[in-house]
């Protein structure tokens, strides 16, 4: 019997402020990854400035690709296919990776695999252990808060998502109110660990849907800080962080719990940058124990934006017959299908 050939995929990701390239074998085995982060550049602006991000992507793209190939000790000739994040994300940023991927696909006559950024986050888990179906995926990041059901590889069904701000965005905003530098989300999490939830904040969107809403909570934190200042009270940052985190995490856990109950989920995966949040991790793990659901949370390096997850998702996308031609375009608001 002929042995199945390995498939080596080069993944490229440039949807926000990280330029990344990665080489992954058979969707599960990371060979090499390079990530060029722009956090220090955007820090001065309190958040990602799209035009500045685009300018850095174009500067970095070939350097990142070259470093990745060197790290893998491979040449482009050894790559079987190119997987690219086509959306969603910042359009100017996405386009740099897209044009690079299209050019490589043409020059080396290799398949071009379009990967949805959220599919990437979900498939980050397959770098740790194979996905088991059916599964429920909780995607939490600076740009996304979504509950997605999967019945098989590349069979996605979005159950719900945020109606306004993403959870990570809300964390960063709260961090700014407390006076923490961008990206402040992880710092809020740290402060929350030592604080006590003494401030009263509303639990967002207590309804029957699987949707989330964080703009009201964000406003409540801003107003609370403002009112305390007006009254001449000193804001207890640790306690505010803990109060906010409690409500934010509770809102996510409640909706996830509802989805588990309704769908009879046995396997839950958490994905995206906010999956690194200790408060959320603990709460989700408790939920898993309580409901007898297996929980998989990828290691930190696969949670934040990276091309490894894109190459991993690209493998399964390819098996599902998803190959694009050179007219592939980026889109800032792609729907996961």
């Amino acid at each position, binding site marked *: 019997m002929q042995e199945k050939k390995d498939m080596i995929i080069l993944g490229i990701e440039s949807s926000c402020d990280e330029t990344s390239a990665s080489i992954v074998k058979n969707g599960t085995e990371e060979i090499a990854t390079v990530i060029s982060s722009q956090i220090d550049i955007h820090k001065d602006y309190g958040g990602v400035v799209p035009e500045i991000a685009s300018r850095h992507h*174009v500067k970095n793209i070939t350097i990142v690709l070259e470093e990745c190939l060197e790290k893998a000790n491979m040449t482009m000739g050894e790559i079987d296919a190119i997987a690219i994040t086509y959306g969603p994300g910042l359009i100017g940023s996405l*386009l740099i990776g897209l044009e*690079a991927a299209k050019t490589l696909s043409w020059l080396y006559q290799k398949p071009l695999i379009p990967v949805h950024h959220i599919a990437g986050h979900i498939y980050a888990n397959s770098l740790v252990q194979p996905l088991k179906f059916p599964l429920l995926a909780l995607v939490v990041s600076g740009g996304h808060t979504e509950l997605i059901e999967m019945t098989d590889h590349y069979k996605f069904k979005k159950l719900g998502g945020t109606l306004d701000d993403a959870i990570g965005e809300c964390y960063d905003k709260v961090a700014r109110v407390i006076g923490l530098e961008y990206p402040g989300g992880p710092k809020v999490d740290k402060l929350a660990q030592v604080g006590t939830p003494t401030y009263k904040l509303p639990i967002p969107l207590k309804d029957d849907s699987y949707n989330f809403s964080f703009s009201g909570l964000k406003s409540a934190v801003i107003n609370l800080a403002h009112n305390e200042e007006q009254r001449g009270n000193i804001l207890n940052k640790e306690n505010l962080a803990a109060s906010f985190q409690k409500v934010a995490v509770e809102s996510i856990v409640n909706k996830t719990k509802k989805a588990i109950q309704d769908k009879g989920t046995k396997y839950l995966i958490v994905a995206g940058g906010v999956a690194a949040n200790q408060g959320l991790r603990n709460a989700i793990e408790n939920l898993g124990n309580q409901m007898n659901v297996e929980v998989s949370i990828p290691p930190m390096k696969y949670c934040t934006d990276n091309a490894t997850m894109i190459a991993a998702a690209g493998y399964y996308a390819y098996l599902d017959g998803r190959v694009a031609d050179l007219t592939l375009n980026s889109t800032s608001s792609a729907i996961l299908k």
Partner: protein
Amino acid sequence: MILYIDTSSNYLYTGVVENGEIRKEIKKEYGHRLSEVTLPEVVSMFENTGITPRDITKIIVVNGPGSFTGIRIAISIAKVYAWTLKVPITTITSLEAMAVSSEDDTVKVPVIDARREMCYAGIFSKDNEVILKPCYISYKNLQQQLEKIENYKIISNDGEKIQLNKPIIESYNPDIARITEVYKHKKGINPHAVNPDYLKLTEAEESKLI
């Protein structure tokens, strides 16, 4: 064989030139569709002429000024191409391309509108020597500079609103054979260092300076 690419305006200007002669060229208005069509158009140009990517011995790419997003499309394609196939590459500005494409009869002033009473412009002699280096300049200031010059012509992209007191404005039509001929010996640069030259900071950087 030289590959030329310019996506700094609403138009795709690309061509393959061999021994000073155009093998194939494309000049087409695409506007916001440039990200989608540029590479397929380049590929079709190769396929229609039987040229393969490895036949190219030099890439000349326009690095701006113009549309920020547009410039990055050609630059991304060109730098990845040059890097991975080790093809010598060089950049020229859109304003230089505009100047050398125009007949050498008088002083040439290529102008690209940059909104808010600003533009990108350069002033070149009739022999294409630089008089005013490509820059981001107010129309008012440019007008003052031009008052010192007796005879000159404004060159601009078709359909662009140029706020200068000059009744006749020449519409830019790139002479890709001429452009590549003039710049074919321009020193090559490391593909990693091939980057747009926007001539303008981002708005976020500008407001930070205030």
